[in-house]
């Protein structure tokens, strides 16, 4: 018993000696160049330009962490990997992709197709599946965007991450992570969406780029992006509507916030007949006439107005997608998964989507007329 234990320790000891110096993966944090953001674009000469955004690590004085300064490094190469390896020559330490937060892709490259980029990102295991993707509008160069210093957060890559992580209550854009984009473009529709970003003075993230078969084909701007999101996720919170409405002869401005869900059904006809049943819960956040009586009748009117607005918005975005003949909302996939034989008859890619007959119904109910005050109470007497 005791002898056996001794043998164990001897073997263990030998092995440890043996292993010393073999730890090739041991690289201290300060020996890695931590990449937080990566920008990829392509030149007219078909050369890839890769911009990496790395934080400058300065020693912290007495505990206070100094502001995150950063540096961008740009490299070029005939292939993406070449461009990245060229950058390695400019940095003192090894490039480390483990903390990559966001990959922004230039407009030009996006129009040419993202396959190359996605394949590289997919194959690198240290890179998380959860990096955010964004497309840079053509008004900015990619490196220019990555160099932009926001007055709010200095690292743009972290800006993107925080922006999306915070789940901002805006319905103009939606985060898309690497695996989500991969998944969506792999579905029957072969279509996906990515957010647009650009910088003028600040970093702006709004609108969605529409991809078909990996190529940028169009975009949803403003409220279209929100409606697109609604159709895709079948659910959208916090759409803002400000409406002018005439109630009892008075022009009233109403601002409301609507949370909606959508139910998509299809009938097996050819071309397919789709019904989009949108139902929503609204909340009034602003009413231009303070003492206005929000009676049920008035509310009904406001509801109708909102319903009309949503309906036209949805029809607008559907029309846009139909014009492009791209269907990024997994409607085709839904049909495909429920009834494959029927789906085959539709010729979805070519004509099935384009010719589909879509009816939209909207129903909105106002649940709250103000969260804190009951502003419409009537005064009696003096």
């Amino acid at each position: 018993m005791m002898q056996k234990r001794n043998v164990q320790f001897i073997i263990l000891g030998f092995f440890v000696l043996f292993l010393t110096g073999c730890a090739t993966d041991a690289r201290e944090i300060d020996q890695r160049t931590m990449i937080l953001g990566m920008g990829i674009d392509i030149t007219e000469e078909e050369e890839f330009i890769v911009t990496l955004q790395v934080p400058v690590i300065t020693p912290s004085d007495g505990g206070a962490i100094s502001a995150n300064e950063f540096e961008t490094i740009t490299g070029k190469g005939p292939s993406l990997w070449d461009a990245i390896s060229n950058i390695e020559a400019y940095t003192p330490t090894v490039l480390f992709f483990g903390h990559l937060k966001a990959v922004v892709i230039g407009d030009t490259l996006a129009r040419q197709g993202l396959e190359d980029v996605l394949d590289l990102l997919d194959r690198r295991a240290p890179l998380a599946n959860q990096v955010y993707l964004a497309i840079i509008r053509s008004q900015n160069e990619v490196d220019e965007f990555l160099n932009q210093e926001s007055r709010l957060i200095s690292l743009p890559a972290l800006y993107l991450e925080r922006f999306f992580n915070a789940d901002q209550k805006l319905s103009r854009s939606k985060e898309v992570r690497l695996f989500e984009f991969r998944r969506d473009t792999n579905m029957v529709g072969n279509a996906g969406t990515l957010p647009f970003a650009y910088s003028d003075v600040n970093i702006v993230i709004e609108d969605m780029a529409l991809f078909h078969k990996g190529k940028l084909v169009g975009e949803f701007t403003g409220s279209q992006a929100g409606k697109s999101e609604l159709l895709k996720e079948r659910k959208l919170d916090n759409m803002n509507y400000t409406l002018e409405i005439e109630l009892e002869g008075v022009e009233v401005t109403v601002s409301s916030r609507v949370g909606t869900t959508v139910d998509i059904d299809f009938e097996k006809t050819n071309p397919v007949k789709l019904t989009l049943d949108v139902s929503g819960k609204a909340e009034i956040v602003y009413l231009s006439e303070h003492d206005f009586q929000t009676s049920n009748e008035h509310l009904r009117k406001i509801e109708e107005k909102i319903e009309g607005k949503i309906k036209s918005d949805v029809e607008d975005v559907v029309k846009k997608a139909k014009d492009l003949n791209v269907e990024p909302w997994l409607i085709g996939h839904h049909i495909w998964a429920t009834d494959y034989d029927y789906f085959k008859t539709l010729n979805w890619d070519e004509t099935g989507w384009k010719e589909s007959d879509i009816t939209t119904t909207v129903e909105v109910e106002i649940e709250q007329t103000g969260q804190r005050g009951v502003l419409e109470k009537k005064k009696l007497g003096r």
Partner: protein
Amino acid sequence: MEIQSKYKRIGSVELFTFTYCSAVTLGFMFLPYISSEEIRSAWLKVIVAVLPYLLLIFMWKKVVDKHQNRDFFHLFKEMSPKWIFYSVIFYLFASSIYSLLFGTKSLIIIVQTYLMQDTEQWIIGSSFLLVLFLSALYGIHAISRMIVVIFFHEILLVIALISFLFSDEFRWINVPPYFGVDAITFLKSSLSEVTRYGGIIALFAFVPLVKNDVKVFKPITFSILSIMVTYVLICVATLGVFGYDQALTLLSPVTALMQTSTSPTGLFERLDLFFLTVWIISFFKIGLIFIWFTAFLLRLIFPVTPEKQGFHIAIVTSIVLLLTLLTPSITNFDWRYYNMNMLVYALLIPMTILAYLLIRKKQGVGK
């Protein structure tokens, strides 16, 4: 002399965890879509694939009821010609070496892909086997206890998987059963899933150690069903999050799945690496079980006294180590041969023997 023999017993909890851990690891790591040709609704296959094993357990129960003996190998030895016994045991021995080799290789691939890109394969493999060897020397009681102690790992994983069903990324639309193929293709591709439960063959050696007053087959069946539930959860969760086309291309769908989640606590940035440690432990457990089982089979061929069991463990480990070092690394898995062999070794052979034992007894009574 043993004091307090009540602590030496192996109870139903030990049996349950042992069964669970002896099979679940590889499935955990690589399900769904292990073989190269796959149909969409892999989770259906997993459910179908459990049936043969339930039959196996049922047959075993029948055999035990008839012969009043839980020692499968002992019965087999008693009731069959020597050359059959030895050749079968030898085959089982070779196969379990093969599956150990395969497990080690998979561990190497996983570790190299996700944790240590630049470290050489032999370092990963030999350090794993060394630790396995040292731990296996402690014997089956320590192993079975250790499995119980870190069983919370598996519970953690299952909870994580369930939580994925409620995450934003999960879409039920990807999941519904879908038969794009005829029944024969379906059954054929289910065969590869059958091997996912193959690890429970180690039970044949483990059950005789269980005290006689402990009910054996209830925890085993329950455990096999839990494995099935776990597998279904894995398949459904990966399929729901990634969809068929992407899940098909992933080396380890569950790891990719964990990557998609951000840690709610902010303690670890990337949950997938945290879960990788869980998988390493999982490999460690199944490795221990099979080193022990293989050494057990070797002992059936060359009996030794209990004190000298260390030699057998050393032999087994060094064979696996040598094979690991000498065979080329598998970058692209070809699971076909492994699956075929596993099918024969873990299901067909035990079933045949059990059937033989069932018949044999009747003949004995007839005479």
